[in-house]
């Protein structure tokens, strides 16, 4: 039942995006042009990367509000450690990814071991990271250009498409496989569908949850790294919009904010939808205030729409407790994929 519903949601989001895209062509034909498409693709790429982490966390039943700060951290650190000539890129990128992963794990630790509500913990971490960045840069990040390789991801094209988009495509494939095919992914679904079962199953479910937040931190750091190529020089607020954008993409993409339901392709669709919408609004010259207002309205609307679609699911949920526990415990005996 839930599989079919999820697939329907994904199709729905992509269809909606296509409709919106065509409509925007009527508003202003320039919006359908190559450069416009490229802008949408590139800007959506960042949201897509960040949204995978957010999506995995939401799938497990939580929320990650520290994504924006970690993105900024990634961008600032890369800008500070690697000059334009790519010297040191080989160690800086893995180091930054590890740092993002570590902050994510810290979030996961707080949520599982200390039992702090997810949004509180991640909000706190976000503020801690933000002030650490502020102190590290003393308010003025080094205004050097981004490492050449990273900037090339955005600027250089193969057959007219910026390299970053190929990169994101590969990312989407790997991420979707991780989420749906691996035992880790199955465990995340199980925990999200029934958190109490997770508590009963104990340590294993804790490790999975910490893993979810760690992945989110990793993705945020990755997003920050590639974002630097787009922004050029690190800005202290570079990551800020992505916290809410990633949540919006996940929600619009059909994932339940309660956890347990959701697919990354859906999230990608959500990100694209919001990307097209945002591009249209910018092209029409709408004030930033509209963007904020509409983003909030869309989150609420998406919730309402998906809730009415999901009302059948809730009735079958109570029977799932035992099977959820079984699934978590049984997975311990399956060979790793």
């Amino acid at each position, binding site marked *: 039942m839930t599989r079919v519903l999820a697939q329907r949601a994904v199709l729905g989001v992509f269809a909606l995006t296509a409709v919106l895209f065509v409509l925007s062509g009527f508003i202003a034909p320039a919006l359908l042009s190559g450069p416009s498409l490229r802008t949408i693709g590139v800007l959506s790429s960042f949201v897509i990367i960040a949204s995978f982490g957010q999506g995995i966390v939401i799938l497990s039943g939580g*929320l990650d*509000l520290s994504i924006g700060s970690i993105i900024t951290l990634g961008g600032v650190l890369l800008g500070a450690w690697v000059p334009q000539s790519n010297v040191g890129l080989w160690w800086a990128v893995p180091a930054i990814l590890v740092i993002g992963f570590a902050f994510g794990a810290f979030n996961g630790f*707080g949520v599982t071991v*200390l*039992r*702090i*509500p997810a*949004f*509180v*913990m991640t*909000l*706190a*971490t*976000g*503020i*801690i990271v*933000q*002030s*650490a960045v*502020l*102190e590290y840069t003393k308010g003025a990040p080094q205004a050097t250009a981004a490492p050449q390789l990273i900037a090339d991801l955005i600027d250089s094209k193969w057959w007219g498409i910026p390299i970053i988009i190929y990169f994101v495509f590969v990312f989407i494939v790997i991420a979707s496989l991780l989420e749906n095919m691996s035992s880790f992914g199955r465990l995340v679904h199980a925990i999200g569908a029934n958190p109490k079962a997770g508590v009963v199953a104990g340590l294993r479910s804790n490790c999975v949850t910490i893993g979810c937040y760690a992945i989110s931190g990793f993705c945020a750091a990755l997003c920050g790294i590639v974002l630097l190529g787009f922004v050029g020089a690190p800005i202290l607020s570079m990551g800020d919009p992505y916290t*809410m954008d990633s*949540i919006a993409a996940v*929600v619009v993409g059909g994932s339940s*904010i*309660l956890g347990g339901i959701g697919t990354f392709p859906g999230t990608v669709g959500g990100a694209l939808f919001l990307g097209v919408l945002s591009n249209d609004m910018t092209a029409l010259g709408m*004030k*930033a*205030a*509209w*963007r*904020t*207002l*509409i*983003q*909030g*309205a869309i*989150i*609420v609307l998406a*919730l*309402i729409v998906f*809730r009415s679609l999901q009302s059948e699911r809730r009735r079958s949920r109570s029977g799932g407790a035992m099977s959820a526990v079984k699934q978590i415990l049984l997975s311990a005996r399956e060979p790793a994929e």
Partner: protein
Amino acid sequence: MVVSSALSLYSRSPSSVSITLYIVMFVVYALAQGHFVTTPYGLSVLLNNSIALAVGATSLTFVVLTGGFDLSLAGTVALTNTILSVAGFKGVGGALEALVVVCLVGAIVGTVNGLLVAYYKLQSIAVTLGTMIMTSGIALFMLNAPGGTVPDSIAYGLTGLLGPVPVAIIILVPFTAAATVLLNYTRFGIGVFAIGQDRAAARASGVNVEWTEFRAYLTAGIVAGLSGYLVSAETGTGDPRFDASFLLLAFAAVAIGGTSFRGGRGTVIGSVVGAGLLELIQKTLFAVGVSSFFTGMFEGALMILAVLVGSLGSMMAARRSAAS
């Protein structure tokens, strides 16, 4: 006899931890600041900063007690703050008009939240996240960058002294009393606790769960408006962006005050004192000379500690209540 019953009341109340810490912290702060603190002026400075947070924390308390979260506090504060700094209210009459306006705005936000969470059964975190973003967006329409001026009657009137007494106390005491009565002595309030503890049982006992939960969000919205009013008085200027720090501190105040995030257990006094405690800690750190770098780090760490301490206090109180 009196002492022992007072002690047992103390150990059973979830807010005892925060009250104790506040007293300890106050002593530390007084030692650091010297005589200044015990003058009416010094006291008013201390209270002015805490009162907006205290009211904000109270707003959250109503929702947290039902087992939910209300992120829209930050948005309502931003919106009401913006309205007060651009609308041009004047004088005492204007201050009163402004008060009505902020309550109305808060009520609208609270109504939307309440409808979607209580009747439409949507998740509170998501809904209030959405309304927080929307209210901030509306605020951005009125003011696209921090600026504007809050009328003097509000900014100076509320932060000054009335004779020897800080106006802040004149506001805070009746407010806390009213909120406590609302929560502990009305059917609505008792219903709020019941929903938080066991929804199904509350329904079986005849509590109208949806209506009560709706009113909890409505109340939270109105009180959030009041909090925005006080924030305007304190800062004197407008900011249309939602303040994540304020939100975090408000939740920390609720946590440290002994209100459990699981719902069903907590007090208004705890949240109010918790807010005061957090402000006091920040001011003490500042007085002692800790660099501003640590303020940010500290807020985050404080939040985590607050939840831990609060849940400890809540657990202890629960155990004592069960044992007696």
